[in-house]
């Protein structure tokens, strides 16, 4: 996949306009590979009335039928023999059968280039020995969740002296390790090394609240950092809460706001989105995002809420070229951010869902499934 190689070796992380043509060629190359190697995918495209010839320019990318997360969960579509898949991860969703995503060696290499470039751009790679607090699962043989693996991988960005996990592996399951975390933090404070926090925003909030209750205030090394990913909407009602969390991190840990980074990504779309200095997610050269109307799925423009359709030619092992998550977001022109990055940025509004909707008929769904299947 020569175009993918070109795209993922490109140096200018946010030059989306300058790479539109390369991106388009790379997507065609990627699609062609999947169509030739994954019969289920090619049949699906055919049934949806899509042919490769439908794509004549970059502006036609919206014509690729996106695969929704819900669909992917029920279908294990691969374009390479199973033995060729190396990094396997399951999505962290709690409902339904966990979906497995596997990446082949070439895909992993391209992904590594992307992560390296992104981390270098934001100066997140450091040779200094660092202590880690992982606000998530300890990796283990019985846990293939993408989140656990990504968190572990992130601890490689600076050499790890010690890693303490919020959810410790007991061999069979996990237990909350609040005391272990607090003791580790008190120990870390006395050492002259930076500390990095990695995990879900909600876990950080719980930790900060716990420390506050116990009257603990830390002055961690000034180069300490907080890396957050996913799960804002679950626990946070309003946008301002993000700012409050950063303020709390400064007050209780002594970590400044500019050292707090937020990430966005999905197992079925393994692209790294890192927030800019204004805490916004700009689209990097590796992907393009189309927002689709919540009723008709037709593409919508800037400032209109839509379902997220994420496009990338990264993955060779599975036809994840164009996927659609449950996220509802709104796109803004790059310039409106003011951080200096020109590519558009998106704001997550929430998840598609019927949660909190009062219904008694839906309560019987689980049972009915049990009988019908």
């Amino acid at each position, binding site marked *: 996949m020569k175009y993918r190689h070109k795209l993922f070796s490109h140096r200018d992380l946010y030059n989306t306009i300058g790479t539109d043509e390369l991106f388009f060629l790379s997507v065609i190359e990627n699609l062609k590979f999947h169509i030739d190697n994954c019969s289920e995918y090619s049949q699906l495209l055919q049934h949806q009335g899509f042919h490769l010839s439908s794509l004549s320019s970059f502006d036609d990318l919206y014509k690729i039928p996106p695969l929704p997360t819900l669909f992917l969960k029920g279908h294990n579509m691969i374009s390479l023999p199973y033995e060729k898949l190396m990094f396997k991860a399951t999505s962290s969703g709690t409902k339904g059968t966990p979906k497995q995503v596997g990446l082949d060696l070439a895909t992993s290499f391209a992904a590594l280039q992307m992560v390296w470039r992104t981390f270098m751009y934001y100066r997140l790679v450091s040779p200094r020995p660092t202590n880690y607090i992982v606000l998530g699962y300890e990796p283990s043989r019985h846990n293939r969740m993408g989140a656990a693996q990504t968190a572990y991988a992130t601890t490689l960005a600076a050499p790890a002296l010690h890693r303490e996990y919020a959810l410790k592996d007991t061999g069979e399951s996990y237990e909350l390790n609040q005391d272990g975390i607090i003791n580790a933090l008190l120990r870390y404070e006395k050492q002259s090394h930076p500390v990095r926090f990695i995990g879900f925003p909600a876990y950080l909030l719980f930790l900060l609240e716990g420390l506050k209750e116990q009257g603990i205030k830390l002055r961690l090394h000034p180069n300490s950092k907080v890396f957050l990913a996913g799960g804002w909407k679950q626990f946070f009602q309003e946008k301002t809460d993000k700012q409050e969390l950063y303020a709390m991190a400064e007050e209780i840990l002594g970590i400044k706001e500019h050292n707090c980074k937020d990430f966005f990504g999905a197992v079925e779309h393994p692209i790294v989105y890192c927030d800019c200095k204004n805490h916004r997610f700009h689209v990097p050269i590796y992907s393009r995002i189309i927002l689709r109307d919540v009723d008709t799925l037709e593409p919508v423009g800037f400032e209109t809420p839509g379902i997220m359709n994420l496009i990338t030619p990264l993955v060779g092992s599975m036809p994840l070229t164009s996927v659609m998550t449950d996220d509802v977001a709104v796109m803004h022109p790059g310039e409106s951010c003011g951080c200096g990055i020109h590519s558009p940025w998106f704001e997550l509004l929430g998840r598609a869902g*019927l949660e909190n909707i009062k219904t008694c008929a839906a309560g019987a769904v689980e049972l009915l499934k049990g009988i019908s299947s």
Partner: protein
Amino acid sequence: MNLVGGQIVTQAESQRILDTMSDRILSTLSREALNPKTVIEACDKLVHSMDDSAYLITMAKLGIGTEMGTRYLHEAKAMFNRDSLQARLVAELGPDYEQERKFTPLFGAESVRERLEPLGVLLHIAAGNADGLPAFSVLEGLLTGNINILKLPQVDGDLSVNLLLELIRIEPTLADYIYVFDYSSKDIVSIGKLMELADGVVVWGGDIAVSALRKAVKPNTKLIEWGHKVSFAYVTKQGATSEALEGLARHICETNGLLCSSCQGIYISSDDMQDVFEFCKQFLPILEKATMEIPSSTSVGMRAQITLQLYTLELEQKLVSKVFRGKGCSLMALENSNLETSIQFRNLWVKPLPKEKLLTTLRPHKNHLQTAGLLCGAQERDFLTRLLWKAGIVRVTSGNDMSSSYLAEPHDGQYPLRHYVRIVSAW
């Protein structure tokens, strides 16, 4: 909100009160039993003195619009006035429900006395899916003379507590018969203590709640289950008249598929998919028209979810034969005959189900079936009604009336009040 002895108490107080509940209840039980007339009079006064605007505001907080709210209030008033409640007691417990029955049993020598007595203490574990339902459940307990402990669902605004407070204001003797606690469903210790006090536990909710309580309730406590149900429409060629279909469409739009009695899907009495397609073509414009006439305030997140689910089903070609998309509604023609819940909000499945296969298809869903909206010809009606009953359906109605009710109608095939009393005898 917690309500004890007619007063709103704080969460902390409610925990303390828990330890003295046993004494409080014993003291109430030792007194003269609550007379149904007292309850009926209080309800009658309540519905006649109701400040509609205040309730409309409370309901608005729960997302119920003025038009729907006014209708609910009207229905509530019709249901809880003196005549209605009396009629209900007579229908469910018999005309002499208050009297002691003295008689000499067949082959017996002595005369015996029989009468109805309350079960004693009822713990109501209410679900949040129907507004004001928790108060309704307590009222059924009061009508049968029971002491009622209500565990509030997470979402109830303050509607239920306000209604009960108002009732106590009108009739202060009821204060000792109404307790409301706002414990979280996860507070197993507190709920366990409440269960110890109860003679009967009344549970409203889905299968998860019902199974959890089946495990938790001890053998010396009666469990009364009002579980979630599924309903559908059954349409024959003769029944698919414009008028009947318009009624069904109205029902679909008014309840959005959210009630136990809401139509989740439509069975076509045929085994030919062509008939299913034909029906979809005929019904979609009717449903679209009703959708426009009865607007729905569906949120962006919900619309996104519906769209994603529909699109995913479209991709699942093995299962779906065809999706008929309308404006704000859709019909999915599916080849299998499995009963399932729909995507709701005016998105229904349409499946073939010849009457010969009705029994075998529906029997596995025993005890989960509720209403069938039956659209058929006059000559077929009797036969099909009986067939649906046999399959487990308890209510057969027109399409329009799937969620309507009549006075003293049984609830899910039962007379609820009969569950809340016991028959005592002496000779």
